[in-house]
Structure formats: C-alpha cells, structure tokens
C-alpha cells in the first residue's frame, strides 16, 4: 500500500526539524516528520554516567547505537579508521525525537550581530572560507524570540552590555547561581568584566505545562526526569502532532531524496521500522539531519540530474564542517566550591566574543557543567598522576575543589574540513556512511590561547591555588563534527560558493530545503542550539508564508 502524498516531508526531528514541522503543520500543510530513532526515555539510563550522551563509553543513551551505525574518519591523509557512534571521533548527536535537545546542556544563546558578519567585521582570513551570512541578526531576531517563547528560555540580559538587541524579554527569570558562580561573579566584576546568568532552555519556573527544574547533578547528557528541560520533543513536536496535520514517523531512516527528470524533488526513499524500503512523496522536502547527516543524505542522492549529489554542482556540499574549539582553564581551590546544584554551568561573560586585539572573533566564557566522577578522572593538572594512590587521593581531595571555566571559540571555517560519503563502508541499511576528513583552520591557535588566558585570569583572581589551561590549539588538528557540528550546506547569495539560498532552499532545486546547523556560514562563539531552532522558524516560516500565498515551489 502506497503512502499518501503530503505537502511536506521533514527529515530529522531535532532542533531544526521539530520547529519546521510545527511551523508547516500549524499553517495547514500536511507533514510527515521522519526520525531515525524513537522517543527517549529517562528511565532507561537514570544518572548512568557511563551510558549517557555526554560520556558514552558504554554507548549513547539515546542513540545512535553501535550495531547499526558507523562512520569513517580520515585522521590523516590516507589513514582510514572506522569509528563507532560511542567513540570520540564519531560526533554523536542523539538519535531520538528531539535529538540533542533532549539531552543537551540547554544553553540558549543568541548569536551576536557580528557573528553574522564575520568577514566584513574582520576582513578575509588566510586559508579560511570566512564569509558573511546572507541574513543579519535583525532578520533572525523575531525567530530567536519565537524560539525563546515557544520552547522556553530562562534568562535576563540586563547585566550583559554585550547582549544583542531584543524586542521582548525572555519568558522566564534566570536561575540562581551555584556557589562556584557566586564566587566567579564577584571576581569578574573586580576584573572589570560583566558577568551574567547563562540563558537556559530549562524551566526556572513552571512553564509550558511542565514543572520547574530541580537542579539535578547529572543534567547535561541526560533526558530530564521531570521534563523541566525544554526541547523540541516536549514543545513544538507535540504541537505539530496536535494540529492533526503532522504524522511523526519514528524509527525510519531516510536513505535518499528522490528526483524526477526535470530536477524537481518528488519525495524520499526510507527504511521503515521493520527495515522495509518505502517511498514517501511530497511537494517539498526539508532536510534537518544535522551538519553531518544532512550533507550525507544530499551526497547519497545521486541521479542523472545530480550526478555528484543534490546541490553539489560546485563541490560545496559537506565542506566547511565546523565545530567549536573549546578552551579555558581549571583551578584548584583550598576549599570546597561544589554545592551539588546542577547542572553546574551558571555564569558567563561575553566580554571576549568580539573585537579582541589580534584575534578574529572569540567566544563566550562560562563556568563548566558538573563533571561526574568518571569524567573527573580526566581532569587534573598536566603531568600529575593518572593512576595509583596519588591519583585516587587527587580525586578524593579535589572533586569538590576544582573550578572550571571555558568557552566555545568560534572556529574559522576551512574548505578542507569536510563530510563526504564512503561507498565502500555502509551502515546496517546498506547506505554509504559519512566520511569526515580534513583539517580545522590553523588560525584557531591564537584565538584559543587568548580565551584560555582570560579564563585562567578569572580563576586566579578568584583565589585558585593552582591553575592550568585547557583546550589551547597548538598545531594541526582534525576537522570537528562534534555535537556543535555546522556549516556543511552553507547559505549564501552566490550559488557558486554556497549550497542554499538565504531561506535554506538548495540553489539548484525549486523544492528542497535545509533547516539545521548545516546552514551556518560561521558557527558563532556560542553553543548553537537556539540559533538552529531560530533557523527552523526562519526556514519553516518562509515556506509556510509562501505556501499560504499559493507558491507551490515548482
């Protein structure tokens, strides 16, 4: 029995796709929302550090699993390594309804106006494909606002003079600082900086029919046991389903975008929950599978019309893969800082996001999420014991006495950092897997050194008796592709140097859109989730608006 034709297919029920499905179905379009995983259940992995989305040594709590998925990593030229989803190089984004928004740390950053104009702010950077976005902060501002109110953000800009302009405050007040953040707040002020509470996609008060956050220790990496973390799975996706216009098809893996003889997209081929190959037709297709998986799907959709994959006429699909260069510092104090108030991350400074002497861009610096005890075994001063009695003593004495601050330095995009597909290596369904190769920009060395220096200064001023820097880039390093992955289907006005137009439509097709971090031209000096949600509203709102005007994207 054939599937009924629908107006729109959305591939991927994460930060971007969940929002698009809601925008389209509320506008009256019929939608099928595909998700490769199922509904995540907190109870399966309650506070189990070894089997979460953050520490994944025994597996990814919410997928992807090690049985059916794998990727290829080219750590260096010609050296091909198969990586499993729970291994470091894979870049796992949860395979479940809501994807990373189920288990993220939930920082809710708006990018700053400069983040959309990196090239005109700083000029070209040698060896980097640094470019301006085709849209501005002002264009995206209403979408940020929608994301904040419909999904739910707690925060307040009044203490942050660098905050981008906004029309409306956030719907919930910020969280109270934990002990570490209280100390860092006073310290940052002494240094002349402007500390403020991190905006969070978590309920500081009951909101959206869900309860208040109760500050559990293990938050990042886990689904919320009381549903106080706000993701697309408990906000916009249920809204989409409630319209009656959206069918969520879980445990379905889309393998190919189908094209007719005139280059129009006709729908997708997918494997259903029983691994049976099926076809779904639609007037438009929106791909929101994350920067790695979206690029993979476009590249795996080869036809006589698109011999190198859809949108890949100029070899730009999968290029400019970015992540963040996390850097900062850690410090040991002679008293206990840890007060067991989750998730730990609480305070930020935005003083060093832009206009720093001698470097391009910068990033926000925050106190870090709680490190659970196993993760903590990797945190210690350089050169100190990593096992034996001394290490055990270090764990015991310092677990509650270490403060950490760090932030995501905005990577310079590199054309060589890329995702393509490996036809010799296939997943469980026989689909060629992602191959991640190339090098991140060497320019990140200066930026990470600058930020780590500020982070260390912060801890020293706070009274740390011993400090050390973390994450400073010292030489060539492989392309990113972690949970902050972005950039592989860049949006732009020139079809020769971008994949999508400013509304996320793939230049060479009338009816295929991308709506996730793949669109990012640059990845900001912030955690990208709220920006991906805002892009969901931007792309979804554009499609819905045009559809209501009668445009059928033919």
């Amino acid at each position, binding site marked *: 029995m054939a599937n009924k034709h629908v107006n729109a297919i959305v591939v991927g029920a994460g930060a971007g796709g969940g929002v698009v499905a809601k925008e389209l179905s509320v506008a009256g379009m019929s939608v099928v929302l595909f998700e490769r995983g199922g509904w995540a259940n*907190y*109870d*399966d992995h*309650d*506070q*189990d*550090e*070894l*089997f979460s989305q953050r520490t994944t*040594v*025994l*597996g990814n709590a919410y997928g992807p699993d*090690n049985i059916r998925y794998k990727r290829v990593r080219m750590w260096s030229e010609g050296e091909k390594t198969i990586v499993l989803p*729970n291994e470091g190089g894979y870049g796992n984004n949860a395979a479940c309804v809501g994807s990373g928004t189920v288990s993220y740390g939930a920082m809710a950053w708006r990018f700053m106006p400069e983040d959309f104009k990196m090239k005109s702010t700083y000029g070209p950077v040698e060896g980097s494909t640094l470019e301006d976005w085709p849209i501005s902060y002002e264009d995206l501002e209403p979408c940020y606002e929608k994301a904040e109110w419909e999904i739910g953000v707690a925060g307040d800009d009044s203490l942050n003079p660098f905050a981008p302009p906004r029309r409306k405050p956030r719907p919930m007040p910020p969280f109270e600082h934990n002990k570490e953040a209280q100390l860092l707040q006073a310290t940052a002020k002494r240094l002349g900086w402007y500390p403020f509470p991190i905006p969070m996609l978590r309920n500081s008060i009951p909101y959206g029919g869900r309860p208040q956050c109760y500050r*559990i*220790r*293990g938050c990042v990496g886990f689904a919320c*046991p*009381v549903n106080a973390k706000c993701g697309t799975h408990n906000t916009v996706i249920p809204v989409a389903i409630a319209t009656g216009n959206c069918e969520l098809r879980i445990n379905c893996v889309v393998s190919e975008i189908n094209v007719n003889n005139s280059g129009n997209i006709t729908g997708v081929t997918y494997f259903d929950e029983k691994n049976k190959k099926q076809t779904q037709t639609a007037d438009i297709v929106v791909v929101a599978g994350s920067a790695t998986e979206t690029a993979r799907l476009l590249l795996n959709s080869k036809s006589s019309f698109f011999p190198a994959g859809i949108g890949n006429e100029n070899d730009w699909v999968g290029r400019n893969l970015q992540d963040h260069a996390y850097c900062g510092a850690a410090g040991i104090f002679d008293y206990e800082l840890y007060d*067991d108030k989750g998730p730990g991350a609480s305070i930020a400074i935005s003083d060093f996001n832009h206009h720093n002497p001698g470097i391009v861009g910068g990033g926000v610096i925050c106190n870090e999420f709680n490190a*659970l*005890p*196993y993760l*903590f*075994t990797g945190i210690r001063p350089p050169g100190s014991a*990593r*096992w*034996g*009695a001394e*290490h*055990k*003593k270090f*764990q*015991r004495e310092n*677990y*509650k006495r270490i403060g950490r601050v760090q932030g995501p330095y905005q990577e310079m995009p590199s054309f060589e950092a890329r995702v393509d597909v490996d036809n010799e290596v296939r997943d469980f369904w026989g689909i060629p897997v992602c191959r991640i190769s190339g090098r991140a920009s060497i320019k990140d060395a200066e930026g990470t050194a600058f930020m780590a220096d500020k982070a260390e200064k912060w801890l020293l001023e706070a009274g740390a008796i011993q400090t050390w820097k973390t994450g400073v880039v010292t030489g060539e390093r492989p392309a990113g592709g972690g949970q902050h992955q972005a950039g592989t289907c860049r949006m732009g006005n020139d079809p020769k140097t971008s994949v999508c137009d400013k509304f996320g439509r793939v230049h060479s097709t009338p009816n295929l859109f991308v709506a996730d971090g793949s669109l990012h031209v640059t990845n900001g000096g912030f955690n990208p989730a709220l920006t991906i949600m805002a892009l969901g509203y931007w792309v979804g709102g554009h499609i819905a608006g045009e559809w209501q005007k009668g445009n059928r994207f033919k």
Partner: protein
Amino acid sequence: MKETVYSRRKFIKSLSIGVGSLLLLPKCTFEKTSSWRFFTNEEGLLVDAIVEQIIPTDEWPGAKDAMVTNFIDKQLVGPYARHQEIYRNSLSAIQIACRNAFNKKFEELDWDKQTSFLISLEKNEIVSKMIDKSATHGNAISDADKKFIENWLKGNFFNLIRNHTMQGFYGSPRHGGNYKFVSYRMIGLDPYPIMGQNRYKASSNG
C-alpha cells in the same frame, strides 16, 4: 585477603539468585569452572591485581573490593566484546613477561615490583626491560615470547585497562563495579536519586 575472596563469592552467589539460571547453566553444560563471564579464574586473579594497582586500597576500598574486575568482565561480554582479544592476549603476555623476568606471576610480585612493572608498561618499555632482566638472570627470553609480548603489550593495553578501571570504580553500580557507591562515598557525593518508573533498578547490582 580471605574476606575479599568471600565477598566476591558472596556476590556471585547473590547474582545466581537473580539471574543464575541464565548465567550459570550454560557454564555447567560446558563444564567451565571459571567464576567469571569472560575471564578464566587465573585471569581474574591477574586483573584483580592490576586494577588494585591502578586504584589501590587506602583508607577507602580499592578497585578490587569495588568489584572493578566484575565490571570489566561484564563489559567484555557486552559493549566491550571488541576488546576480548586484546585482553586475552595482553594478560597472557604480562604473565609471560613476568615469568621470564621474575619467574613469578604478576600477582605474586611485591607491590612495588608490580607498580614498576605497570609503569614500564605505561611507558611502553616492557620489551626492552625484559631483555635487560633476562640478561642479568642469564636466561635469554625466547624469540617467540619476545614477539608475543611485543605484539600485545606495545599498544595501548595499559591505557585501556586504566580507563576501564576508572569506569568501573567511578561509574554507575548498575554496570557491576563501584560496589555500594564506594567512589561516590569517598568523594563525598550522595548516591543519585533513582527517579522515574523503573525504581527497581536501584537494587540491581549485577
């Protein structure tokens, strides 16, 4: 010493109450006498000694009493099945190296000798050290033994078992280690509350 042996027995016994029919029956059928899932009894003694070196007993229990060997054994027939080969051969290579150099099993060596052996292993110096030792003892290491040790100990085995030991000691007791949340109590962390509908999991330490 006796007490810890007893505590493991007790543990296996308690295991057999819960999932005994599944775990023990096939072993009876094959007349396998190991009390472990993957390890032989001999390997179990060796792993006990290694993990205890990595996290030794001080005023708090060490890795052995925290059932880290049980954790590793359990993962080796689960998510870590891909490490079976390296464990089997590397453990064997350690014993061959110790026999050549000291005419003893690793677990029979003095504490400090065990420590320096593991430091050499970590620094990837085992093979050259063995040759030196053999030379002073006058009994040269055989080429076959040397090759086997080279093959299985030059890689990352120490890092692997170091990381697995940390996981077993500091991770969640549901995976078989961190017996009674010993590491959490040592650090001063309350065990986490068990929430949700599957509260019964709180007691399953298998």
